[in-house]
């Protein structure tokens, strides 16, 4: 699988910070803090998306809503949530949802050389890429440890973008962000995406999977089992 090549500018920024931290101090790096033990810490996001991959009907409406709400254009490539499917596979392995995890120690924020990707205090510290500061280095794209990476590459605008919990959605007629509406949550016909305040376990990959199925689902003939 071809991956975009990583850029090393983020590494040089971290090296500077590490060197500073070696003096025994915590270093404030914009909205983040580099601790003496090398951990890069930013304030936690005020909200997260969890998904029920077993419930999703694969309609892609969340992807359409996401790109429309952010850009006014319908595009799967520009959607900040991805639905991956294999028509010939068996449930539940036939579909996966890939949403940004608003990681506690977000590597995509850490590596950004310009601070474009940052924990935005105005929107509950959601990890958001300021398009005016993004230089299109793709460091964040490479830094995301998940498959598929949760940062999208806007190949037309030559910038990175990512889920901001709908903080900046000029085409949504309601306020977004952690204290507002998320387009994908609102539009999902089956309720397979939920917004939660409590941060999922950062040590487990499956902690962003939720069981959102209830008695209605069972009544429709489908399992409620986790």
């Amino acid at each position, binding site marked *: *699988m*071809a*991956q*975009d090549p990583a850029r090393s500018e983020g590494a040089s920024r971290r090296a500077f910070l590490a060197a500073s931290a070696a003096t025994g101090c915590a270093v404030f790096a914009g909205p983040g803090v580099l601790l003496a033990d090398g951990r890069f810490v930013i304030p936690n996001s005020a909200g997260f998306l969890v998904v029920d991959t077993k*419930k*999703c*009907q*694969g*309609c*892609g*409406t969340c992807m*359409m*809503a996401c*790109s*429309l*709400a952010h850009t*006014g*254009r*319908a*595009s*799967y*490539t520009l959607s900040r949530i*991805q*639905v*991956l*499917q*294999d*028509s*010939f*596979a*068996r*449930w*539940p*392995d*036939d*579909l*996966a949802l890939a949403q940004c995890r608003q990681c506690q120690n977000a590597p995509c924020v850490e590596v950004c050389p310009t601070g474009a990707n940052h924990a935005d205090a105005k929107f509950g510290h959601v990890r958001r890429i300021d398009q005016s500061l993004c230089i299109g280095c793709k460091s964040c794209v490479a830094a995301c440890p998940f*498959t*598929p*990476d949760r940062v*999208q*590459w806007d*190949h*037309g605008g*030559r910038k990175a973008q990512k889920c901001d919990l709908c903080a900046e959605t000029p*085409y*949504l*007629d309601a306020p977004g962000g952690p204290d507002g509406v998320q*387009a994908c949550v609102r*539009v999902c*016909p*089956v*309720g397979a995406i939920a917004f939660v305040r409590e941060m999922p376990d950062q040590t487990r990959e499956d902690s962003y999977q939720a069981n959102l199925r209830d008695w*209605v689902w*069972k*009544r*429709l*003939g*489908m*399992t409620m089992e986790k």
Partner: protein
Amino acid sequence: MALYGYAGKILRLDLTAQRATEIDTAKYRSWGGGHGLGSALFWEFCKDKTIKDGRNPANVIVVASSPLNGTLVPSAGRSEVVGVGLGMYPYSWYTRSGFGGRFGTMLRQAGFDAIVIEGRASSPVWVDVRNRKVVFHDASALWGTDTQTAQERIWAQMGVPRGTDTGWWDLNASAAEALDPATDQGRTTQKPAILTIGQAGENQTGGGGLVHDAGNIAAVAGFGGVWGSKNLKAISVIGTGEIPVADAKALLRARQVTKEKYVSDLQQPDFAAWTKIGKQPKLMAMVPPPTDEFRPQACQGCISGCRARYSVGYGSETKCQVTSWYFAPSRRVAKSSQELIEINLRAADAAQRYGINTYFAITGLHWLEHLVEEGVLGPGKAIPSNLPWDKYGTLEFAEKLIHALSCREDIGADLADGWVQAAHKWGRAEDLRTGHMAFSYWGQPDHGYDPRAEVEWGYGSILGDRDICEHCFNIIFTNITSSFAFAQPMRIQAKDLVGIIAEKLSPYAKNRPEVLDYGDENMYSENVAQLVRWHRHYTRFYKQSALYCDLRWPDFYNTNTPDNRGATASDDAGEHVWWNAVTGDTLSFDDGIEIGRRIWNLDNAIWTLQGRHRDIVHFAPYIYETHFEKGELFPFYMWPCRDEQGQWVYRDIMGRTMDRRKFEEFKTSFYRLEGWDTASGWPTRATLEGLGLREVADTLEAAGRLGKERA
């Protein structure tokens, strides 16, 4: 000026020269998308519109999307295929078929609104489309494979990873010879959407369909057989493009309104709601699910998925009639409910893999059984067949039958070119008089909604090109008859029901509920003719061009709303509202009906050139010579009618016949209302020019087939 809602280009494939060219969509904008776009393209690029067999190399096939695909318009994600079909009787008309899934959405993201397929390749090919770049590939290694194998091999050839634990596929790293290296092609997590034929298409059978993913098939009309005649195995589309819409805010708002107002609440749903758009995502299969381990599976943008993907590994993405084409025979042998389900879903899989239309089975299996019982079909019989008839009802028999029909073996050798043609060849034309062969119109089987009862269905089919398979009004039958059969309450009484629907039958039948009275006295009336006109025009634009799904639209009545009014034609979520939000048009609902009338007239012009005349517009003889006495689904057929006192009631309309003379009068009435020559059924110059189709009128006149104006 921005062409909102469109990718902006149409792909022309010259299979003979294996050359791809592009034309601009803007010229065809007034036709909408889907069928309208397809008919306009067919008219322009098919140089011999007199052909009556889709295998003629002059045939042109168009696969078209809609501006609404992939823009979150609810349940508008289907694709449309048009061209001259195969396997119909006495002629294969210029006709249509549709399929769901994600092909239309991905075609647009690959940069095209439609694909025009012309000519014939000298050897099997498949076509690879990535971000407007097109490569023809040799398909000889794929020829003979079923539809699933073909798609999987094409993915493998393209380097597409299987499963869902996959990353972004960088189109810059793929098919370097096809893509412009100077332009960043972008990335996608999606797999290419492929439309392919199986053995039924390769062998140029009338049942050959076009299959996409596991369970989407454009089945009726034999387009798979047409592709087979052109040596076209498959088309794959993948793209990273985007579609601009005129008013994204309005789109998002309307989607929210639809969910809140018209759809049953997810937390406290009304499981028995009378609605189309407002249903919960309940599997639309004719057998229970084999397990509770499944998800609803939906076409792109759908508000309520009707298929499933199961943990058991069979039956996925298949729904409706395909899940029960073998139900009646299987009941004879299945010893448990689970066995019955598995036989039927695996039989469905067999049909999807071979890529064959299963509609033959609705009445065709009864006919074959009749021939076996009469002792004329079987090993060593007058109609020889070495199929294992002693195992009729088993999965083994189903798979062998599908194989035979798809590969022109055994009785499939004769049935492949058309079932009614085979009946004539076998000396069984009499079965069309007795009704043992219930193939009602154009060599196609009765859909289960007999023309003598569900008149708008029968009339629409015989006055058009095929079994319409449009359930716009059929939902009335389903709601009422099911409630009656299972002793459930009638959610809406007859008078209110017809009144609500009639409010939306603008312009021809607005607030005229009498058009819905299918009672004996009214079934041939001008009232019903107006209903049929509305139905033809509505479906030509909204269902087949804008591509609103037949299962979810129109939403006439809806018990989720306080006043039981549905979303259709509404000011907040009606069909025209979505269209305008995407395209920037300012259509009224009636404007869409008028566009449909234009498309319908262009289609009739094509049929006229093919040889249509009112004298051949007739049902099979049994429709006139016998009575409708046995329903496919229920032993009664309930419909709103006015009683002797003029009061609206739900009445059983089973048991009647169709009067041939009165049907002739109905045709005259219909033709007159459409502005067609009542002597021939051909469109007139005045009607065509009034629709901006002067050139079409000129062509008909040159062919000596222009309808005469009414004196």
